[in-house]
Every structure is written in C-alpha cells, then in structure tokens.
C-alpha cells in the first residue's frame, strides 16, 4: 500500500491543478462547458481574421484590374480565408456547441473522456497558432525559374496553393518556400484534434446517456453530433495520409503526386475530395441539428417527422462519401464516372429535401414567435434552399463544366456554408445565450443583426451567381475591364462590408448583454429538451441529480399535456416544476465528484507545433523539444492519479 502511494507521488510531477478561477482554471480545465466556451471565443476570433481576409479580397476585386494587392498577396489571402473559415471557424464553432450541449442534452455530467476533450481543444488551438505563424516565419515565392518584380511582403508569405492545395501546384517546385508546409502540417495537427474529439463524442453518446434516454428519444442536435463524429472518424484519416504524402513530396523528395516520378496529381484530387465532401456535411449537419431544436421550440409544436429528419441526416452523411468526384467533373475523369457521380449527387438532394419539407411541416400550423434565434433559423432554411437548388444545377454535369471554378460555385457554397452553417450557428448562439451566461441578449440588436446580415449576405453572394455565369473565374487576382464584370463586383464588395457591420452589432450585443443583460430565467423559451431543466447559467456540476427520461422532448411533456383536440395544455404543475428544478439544480443533495483538472492535455498538445517546425526546418533540436513535451504530456497523463485517491491515501496515514 505504502509503496504504491510513494510510487504515485514520485510519478506525479505536479499536484493536480486546483484553480477554479483565473487563467490556470481555463488552461487546466476538463469541464466540457468551459472547453466549449473556449472553442467558441477562439473560433470567433478566427472568424474575425477570416472575415478581414475576405474584406481584403473584396477590396481588391471591387474594380477591374485593381492593384490593391499583389498576386502573391491575393493568393495567400484566399488560401488562408478558405482554410481559416473551414478548419478554424465553422468546425470549431460547431465543436463549441457539441462540447457545451452534448452532455447537457443527454443528461451526462461530462463527456466520456474529459481530459481527451481538453486535448482536442489544445491541439486545435496549437494547430491554428502553428498555421498562422506562417505570417511571421513562412516564405513563399515564384515557381522555380520564375521571376517576381518585387519582394513578397509578410501578407503574401502565407500558404498560397488554395485550401484545396491542388497538386502539383502546391508541390515544392511550383510553390517553393515553407508556407505550404505550414499549411500541410497545420491541417495535420487540426485533423488529429478533430479525430480525437470524434471518438470522444461517439463514446459519450453511446455510453453516457441518462436513464431512459433511448436513441429515439435523443434530441436531433445530439443525433447530428453523432453523425458528424462518424463523418470525422472516417474522413479525416484519408486527408491525414494524403497530407503526409504532400509533406513527404515537399520535404523528402518522394513523388506521390508528381508525374516526374510516376506519381499522379489527379490522385490528390480524389483523396482530397474523398475527405473534402464529407467535410461539407461535417460543416452543415451541426447547423441542421441546431435548427431542428429551435424551430419546434419557437413554433410550440414538436418536430415534424422526427425519425425522418434523423434518418435523413444519416442518409446524407452516408451518401456524402459517394459523391466526391463531383468536385472534379472538368478534371481527368471518364464520362462513366461523370454520370455515376452526377447521379449520386442528385440522390443526396432527396434526404436534404426531406429535411427542408419537415422543417416547413414543423412551423406550419404552429404559433411562431419570431425572436432572433427563430429569425436566423428561418433565414437558414431560406438561404440553404437557394444553396441546395444551385447544388442541383451542379449535379447536371455538362452544366457544371461551365460553372465549376467560377463565382457561381463560390456563390453556391457560401449559400450553403454561410447562409446555412453560419446562420444556424448564429441561431444557436442566441438560443443558448441565456443558458450559458444566465442573462438575456438584447432582442432589438439581435433582430437588427439578423436583418443586416440577411441583406448583406444576399447582396454579397447573390450577384456572384450571375458573375460566375458571366465568366468570372474563382481565385482570380484581377479581371479585365473588357469582361464587363465591374458593376456587380462593386455591389458584392458593398455587401461584404454590410456583413462586417452586422458582425460588429452582434459583438456589441454579446459584450453588453453578457455583462448588463437582464437576468435569464431557467427556461426562457419554454423549451423542450433537458438542458433547460438546469438553472441558468449551467452549474459546474450540470444536473444535481441524474435525470430520468420518459419521452422525446422530455421537458416539454413534463410541462404540457395534449388535449383531446390535440392542442397543448400547460399542466397546473408546470410552474411549480420549474421552481422546484431550479432550486434542486442550485443545491445538489450530495457531494458531486467532477473530473479533476489536468495540466497534461495542454502540455501534450504543445509538443506538436514543435514537431511541425522540426519537419519544416529539419531541426533535431526542435524535434527533441517536441518529443519531450509529448512524452511528458503522455506519461504525466497516464500516471496522473485522481485527486481523491491521494486524499484517501493521506487519510490512511
């Protein structure tokens, strides 16, 4: 007994951290709520950076033959805008929701592996910092043998091969310097982060559900989290391997994607999109989930066709693996492949349509309260439908050979990922604001944000359809005056700045309401799911007593009966129930043991950027440093005793 104790003390370098406030409480936290909040803020910070990059791009394109940016700078800006918005904004914003809400929606104390959850976050943030350090350390240049009239400034010394990094343009010969290595290795680290969280969420959903929370009683947001976790788990290994190939090609002279050595650049396209298309659903399914929570709440009706919406979500996720080559219709693929992937792409429109119609069925006949979250959800449907319909025109392969690589595509995927995913995310941010902060946001500012963003969004991305059909290619640094594209490009730029203003309003609302907003009740929306059965803000321990679930939309059914005419009737006991729940929630009857904070996820994650630098700069020293951090993190983690054990040992003495 004594021996094991001394062993433990020997192997534990640090006492387990115990800060509950201040910066250390955040660095060492394993609380899913705190991690969710950190994801949210950091991703929002990257949204501002990615948005700034978009504005810079739009200034350059506001008139023909403009020279606001150099070609190198423009190419770096669009590459970083795309990479940032996909990997550092929408994915982590969704992760913020997964982290904060998933345990609450299934009635759990935390996720299955709290420290692993912290690791995901720190890997992600270190991956993001590593990627962005390219602006300080990275270099880019003309292809080998090419000439530049002027030196590339810091703005241009960032990855410039596009977020899709098509080979061989992204290979060393054509993209010399280190910037594209930052891109490949940065994405590698970000991928590990997502992979880790995918398994964590799958385990959590499978094992940590509250008593009575059967699969078909899970909220749709939880379902969509489940689907996304599987998508991540199956798609990320593909890009991980492809990115390793790229790094090997660039650093160690292999020729996986280079024809000189018998490699095949088209293979990269297949691998990239085999990951890249499921990735699109990774970005949009969380928003589907959020909207499926908000629409019923603000319509005061259950979700129309719950099972259909859930299965449609999984149908989309599954078929999403079989449509990748529709990104390559103009590339080197055969007519048979074109036909096959065109058809599979059309097939995916069916479950998507089912979702849209079921959402319409949900609001039809309801009692719609048009608060900000509802406005964003309705805006989401309206905008996503446009993105979906332009998507169908892409599945018509011959038409797509005109549209691909033009602004028509840019319009399409912004309607899906901004009008879709981002509108859904904003809806969720307003919806759960009271639960997270215990205060209400300002409704007037919220609605102003919505309307400005809706107008700005359509002004920005609507005309892009037209520009693309008129022949404006994507990733174009300049366009000739004779192409006659100037007028609508100017309108688009104006729209982009309107979006920027709407974001400022959102920030003002957030900052002000978080401090001074009126205190939020426990259940401000008369909601349906069990995260609203806890006081606002959510206590550290979540549920003071583990909930027991009796039906889908459990909380609603505890408040409401269905009358003989099918209308909802509020139970007499509902108000009493809420008072009771709030009281119980604030005063747990017994001591609740929570996972202990830990230094090691942070330490382990901090090793990876050094390994990245070590590969780029071929430095043994940096590799050693990275490995040491990894080992300290890993061993410390494995041997870390739980605090209670140490306390008990002390008692024994």
């Amino acid at each position, binding site marked *: 007994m004594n021996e094991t104790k001394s062993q433990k003390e020997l192997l534990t370098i640090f006492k387990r951290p115990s800060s509950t406030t201040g910066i250390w409480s955040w660095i060492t936290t394993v609380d899913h709520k705190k991690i969710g909040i950190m994801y949210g803020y950091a991703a929002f910070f990257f949204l501002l950076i990615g948005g700034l990059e978009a504005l810079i791009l739009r200034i350059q394109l506001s008139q023909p033959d403009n020279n606001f940016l150099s070609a190198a700078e423009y190419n770096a800006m669009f590459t970083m805008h795309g990479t940032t918005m996909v990997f550092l904004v929408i994915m982590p914003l969704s992760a913020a929701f997964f982290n904060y809400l998933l345990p609450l929606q299934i009635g759990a104390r935390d996720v299955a592996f709290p420290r692993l959850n912290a690791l995901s976050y720190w890997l992600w943030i270190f991956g993001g910092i590593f990627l962005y350090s390219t602006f300080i350390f990275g270099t880019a240049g003309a292809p080998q043998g090419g000439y530049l009239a002027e030196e590339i400034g810091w703005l241009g010394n960032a990855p410039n091969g596009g977020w899709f990094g098509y080979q061989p343009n992204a290979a060393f010969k054509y993209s010399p310097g280190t910037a594209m290595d930052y891109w490949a290795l940065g994405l590698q680290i970000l991928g590990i982060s997502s992979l880790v969280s995918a398994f964590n969420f799958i385990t959590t959903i499978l094992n940590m559900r509250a008593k009575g929370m059967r699969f078909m009683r899970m909220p749709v947001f939880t379902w969509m989290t489940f689907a996304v976790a599987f998508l991540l788990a199956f798609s990320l290994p593909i890009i991980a391997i492809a990115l390793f190939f790229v790094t090997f090609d660039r650093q160690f002279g292999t020729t996986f994607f280079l024809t000189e050595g018998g490699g095949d650049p088209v293979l990269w396209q297949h691998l990239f999109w085999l990951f890249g298309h499921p990735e699109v659903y990774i970005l949009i399914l969380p928003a589907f989930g959020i909207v499926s929570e908000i629409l019923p709440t603000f319509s005061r009706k259950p979700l129309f066709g719950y099972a259909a919406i859930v299965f449609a979500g999984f149908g989309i996720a599954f078929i999403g693996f079989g449509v990748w080559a529709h990104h390559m219709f103009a590339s080197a693929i055969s007519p048979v492949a074109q036909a096959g992937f065109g058809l599979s792409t059309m097939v995916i429109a*069916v479950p998507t349509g089912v979702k849209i119609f079921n959402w319409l069925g949900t609001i039809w006949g309801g009692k719609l309260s048009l608060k900000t979250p509802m406005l964003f959800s309705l805006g989401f449907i309206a905008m996503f439908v446009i993105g979906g319909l332009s998507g169908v025109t892409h599945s018509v392969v011959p038409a797509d050979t005109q549209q691909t690589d033009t602004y028509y595509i840019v319009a399409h995927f912004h309607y899906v990922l901004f009008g879709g995913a981002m509108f859904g995310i904003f809806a969720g941010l307003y919806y759960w604001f009271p639960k997270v902060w215990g205060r209400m946001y300002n409704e007037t500012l919220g609605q102003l944000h919505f309307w400005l963003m809706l107008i700005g969004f359509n002004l920005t991305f609507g005309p892009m359809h037209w520009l693309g059909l008129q022949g404006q290619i994507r990733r174009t640094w300049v366009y000739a005056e004779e192409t006659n594209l100037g007028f609508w490009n100017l309108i688009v730029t104006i729209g982009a700045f309107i979006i920027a203003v709407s974001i400022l309003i959102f920030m003002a609302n957030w900052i002000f309401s978080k401090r001074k907003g009126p205190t939020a009740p426990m259940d401000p929306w008369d909601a349906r799911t069990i995260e609203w059965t806890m006081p606002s803000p959510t206590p550290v321990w979540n549920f003071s007593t583990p909930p027991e679930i009796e039906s889908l939309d459990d909380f609603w059914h505890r408040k409401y009966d269905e009358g003989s005419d*099918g209308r909802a009737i509020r139970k007499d006991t509902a108000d009493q129930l809420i008072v009771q729940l709030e009281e119980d929630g604030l005063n747990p009857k017994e001591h609740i043991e929570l996972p202990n904070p830990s230094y090691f996820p942070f330490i382990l994650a901090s090793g990876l950027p050094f390994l990245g630098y070590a590969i780029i700069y071929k430095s043994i020293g940096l590799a050693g440093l990275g490995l040491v951090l990894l080992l300290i993190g890993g061993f410390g983690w494995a041997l870390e005793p739980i605090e209670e054990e140490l306390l008990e040992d002390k008692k024994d003495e």
Partner: protein
Amino acid sequence: MKYRIKKMINLFLSNKKINIALFAAFFTSCIENAPLDSLSPEGPYARTIDALFWRTFWIAVVIFVIVQGALLLAVIIYREKPDTPEPKQIHGNVKLELLWTIIPVLILASIAVPTVRTIFELAKEPEDAMKIEVVGHQWWFEYKYPDHGITTANILVIPEKTPIRLEMWSNDVMHNFWVPKLNGKRYLVPGQLTYLNLLADNPDEFWAQCGEYCGLSHSKMRARVISLSKDEFNEWVENEKRSAEKPEEGTLAAKGEQVYLNAGCTQCHIINGVWDVQGDRVAPNLTHVGSRHVLGGASFNNNPDDLAQWLANPAAVKPGTFMPNLELTEEEILALIEYLGSLK
C-alpha cells in the same frame, strides 16, 4: 414624413437622366458584352449545355417559389398573435413525408436522364474532326496543329463550322481550358491526355481563360479563339507555315533582329528561319507574333506601349513569369518592338 419619402422616390424615378443611367448600368452589366458569358452559346456544344442548364434552372425556380412561398406563408399565417391558441401537436404524417420524398425523386429522375445522355454525347469524338493539341504552360496556352505542322500560342485559330478535337496536356501544373461560348471546361493535366470538342457556328472571336488555379498569374492566363471562314483559315495556315523573312539591312527592324539574337531571347523563343532549333522551347514560338493582337497569355494587347512595358520588366506584368528582365535599353526595346511587329 411618409409623404416626403414618397415624393423623393417619385422625383428620383421621374428623373430621366437617373433612369437612363440606372438602366444603362444594369443592362450593360448584365446582358451585353461579357466576352466570357457562358449563357451566350455560339456553337452546338455550348448550346446543348445551355439548354440543359435552363431546363434545370426553371425546375429549380419552380421549387424555389414553392418552398420560399410556403415558408413566407407559414410565417405570415402562423405568426404569434395575442389571441393565438396553443397549436395542435402534430408529430408527423407518413403520407405527406412519403409524398415529398417521392416527388423530388421523380423530378430528379427527369433531370438525370437528359444529363446522362448529354454527358456521353459531349464526350464522343466527332467524325472528321480536326485535331489540335493544346499544351498548358505557366501561364499561357500553346497550340500545335499536327496536320499542318504549325505551332502557335495564345490565339487558337479554327475554321468555322468544323468540329475540332482538342487533345490537351500540361507541361507543369494543372490548367483548365475554357471557352465559355463554345463548350464547358476541361483540365490540362500533367502526365495524361484530356479531350475537349469545339465547334463555332460563325467567324468570330471568343475569349478563353484558364479555369483552374495554377499559381501566381493564374488570372492572367487568358486566351482567344478565332474562328475563320474556311478560305481564310487556309490562308492563315499557309501564312503560318512560312518562315520569318530577314528585315532589310539598316532598318530598325534589322537592329531588333540583332537584339533578339544576342540579348538572350533565343534561349526560350524560336523564330522559324531566324533561329531554328529542334524540339520544344519553354516560351511561345514568335515566328508570327506580329499577327497576334494579344500577347503574354492574352493578358495585354499587342501595342507598342504595352509591349514596351512587358519587355522592360515582364514580372511586373505577369508576376512569377519565366521570362527574365533582360535589362534591355530603351533603344533595344524600340528596335525589338519594330522587329516583332514585322513578324506577321
């Protein structure tokens, strides 16, 4: 207040000048003169695609109107009012859900059938097609006419009403050859061949553009396609086959020829009859450069001012270009322009 705003709007709308300006801005920007417009087909391939697009487009418009209409209607009808009772708790309706699963399937099937048919139709090699090879370079297109033994750049000259089969590959990174008014896009891939058919109805000039991001000067990798009547095309072929003639002694052009031969241009550029080298060079063949009205990957017009800028510092015109700054003197540049202009 309301009245004043109305008055202002009326004034604004009744002002003829403003109206005309607005109309002009709108129409010039969306209907006329977009040389890369994919919706103004000038040949059967592009026309087939165009028809298929519009067919899909109108189906999409109908669905758009139905769905957005239902959404708006729902918001208008079911918006919460003070006396709205609690709604009926409807959990779903299997019949309805089946209906809106099956109807989209049928609509999509009606799109799928012509789509698949058209895919194979467009890919088929036309009978009696004239073969032209297109080679992608960073950042210009090279054309070879194997039947005629011609090599040229930037401007693809084709006979009208004749099916053309382009056999394409890339010399470096992926490119994408796109003549919106004649057909859709197709990649140029290093290490393998891709094909694209063209057919122009009438003699005309069409804009083309590299569609796939290919590095620094991607946006300046442009091209033109010129379709000629069959006679004119034959004339053009005969002229292209001709080697360059020696300029008269003592002229500015003769000086220019010396600059071409001595300043380093011959490292990359061939002029048949003046500097013949077997095999490919990395830069365009200049034998008939004077007859091309656009240069530098069709990114600037062939006029003395623009050409002078290009020769003085190529990278300032096309960032990343493989053409070095040869530090030519102003005199040399003038002579060179004169000489290149004479190479018709």
